[in-house]
């Protein structure tokens, strides 16, 4: 994994984890967690660690940042369909979160 790829993935994981932490209830949190697991699955569980400290508390900002970071992963040779499915899951979790 390239350094740039690892940094992007770490960002995407951090934003999704922050969304899970800030979710309105446990069901929504579980939906964001499953996006996180999907991301790790896609990378063969070789993802770097995440850090949610200091991230924005605005869920809209976090959602947009997470979407951008996941879309950016397409530059590193990942299957576009897999990434699109993850984005669909993220969108579904967002709908549950009443954003």
């Amino acid at each position, binding site marked *: 994994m390239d*350094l740039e790829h690892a*940094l992007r993935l770490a960002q995407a994981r951090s934003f999704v984890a922050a969304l899970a932490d800030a979710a309105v209830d446990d069901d929504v949190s579980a939906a964001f*967690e499953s996006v996180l*697991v999907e991301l*790790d699955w896609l990378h063969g569980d070789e993802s770097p*660690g995440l850090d949610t400290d200091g991230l924005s508390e605005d869920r809209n900002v976090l959602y947009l940042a997470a979407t951008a970071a996941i879309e950016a992963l397409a530059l590193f040779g990942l299957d576009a369909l897999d990434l699109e499915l993850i984005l669909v899951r993220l969108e579904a979790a967002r709908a549950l979160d009443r954003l």
Partner: protein
Amino acid sequence: MYGETGDLMRTELAALLRQHRILHRLGEHSPAAADAVADREAAGIAMQQYRQTILSWCAEAVMAAKPLIFSATLPAPANPFKTANEPGTAVGELARALRLARDASTSRRATTALLTIPSPNEVVEHWRQAARAAALAEHDTNGAAGARLTSPQAQALVGDVAAVTQALVVLDQRYLNIPGWERLAEPGRLGWAALATALDVSLGQPDYSIDNTGWRPRTHELRISPQKGILGVLQAEHDLLVWLKSFPTAMNLRLIVDSQQRLSRRLAPMVERTDACRAETWRARAASYALLKQQLRNVGGRIGNGGPAVAEASKAVSRLRAVPADTIVEPRVAAGFQTLFDGIDQRVAEIVDTGIDRGAYLQRVQVPRLVTAAGQMVSPVRERFMPLDRSVNTELVDAVRGLLPRDPAEPVAPGLSRSVLHSALIHRPAAAADSPQI
């Protein structure tokens, strides 16, 4: 499980203690006097072999428990180099008397054929069942099982042995007229030692959770067709616990943890109307799993498998999703879920502990950095994982501890068969004078 074997042994001995006029009972199938004597002698030989099996269990069980029994009545010896369970204590005397009775008997222990072939005679059949239970109880109290006993459990075991010994002494006295019957060695001494031991352990606090210990058959997944509704969830949860025997990868563990959070959260409202306390427990369980899931985000590791367990967890969640939200979970099913939840919680805690100890689970390094001093043309990315350290990852350790029950386990009831045997030991046959007269 000792609860089953001990229960069967006590029940059968209590039934024997309530039988009087033994000669009549042993010879009832042979009206001719000569045949009756031969029948009684053969039955006596078989019963002595059964008794020898029970005596062997008693002697070995008391030896397994003896190192854990400390007399509640005797003062500790003045010499600090002498232990408090030296010869002279009640349990030491019982062990000696039992060993003597076992070794002095000329009967052999009952063979497998004797233990397994039912007898048409009621008395012999009770003996056979009691001896069979004693043979099976060796699995539960001796060897490795005995090594795991706690001191209060050992007290309960010795109390049971004392009661069984008393029963053998009473029956020995009652069977004196059976042709060829061999008395126990020093029956008086044996009876008094059993009584003293029973009194001694009753001064402590015996722990009857020993009934839940011992050998159990190996559990396997339910070989039944997929159930519908809430029973289908219960079935998948049971199979998940079975498959959790294998160690899962970190990713699969996260999926399992996620499934347990969802299950507890969705099941809690369904049990609210029948058992509000249990609903609260399940909500707390969901919260514990949510915390653990959060802590496992930064844990990775490819060692292990856990695929079948994840499949069952996924089945449980999807089946529960199909169950209407207003379903009421009946108390029996809720108790089943509780048992499985307890097993799964304990196993998940074990898995995380084992993963940390073996280095199977690793901490993800937060942001990789380039190692510039590696002396290579292309600077490699620094390792992305490092071993998990309990002193650093205290939040993960706390989350795992949160799964385990903190309240002390409720004391287990002694069970009915113990009181049945005790009352059979002291019962008196109804006197002829007490029976209604015309």
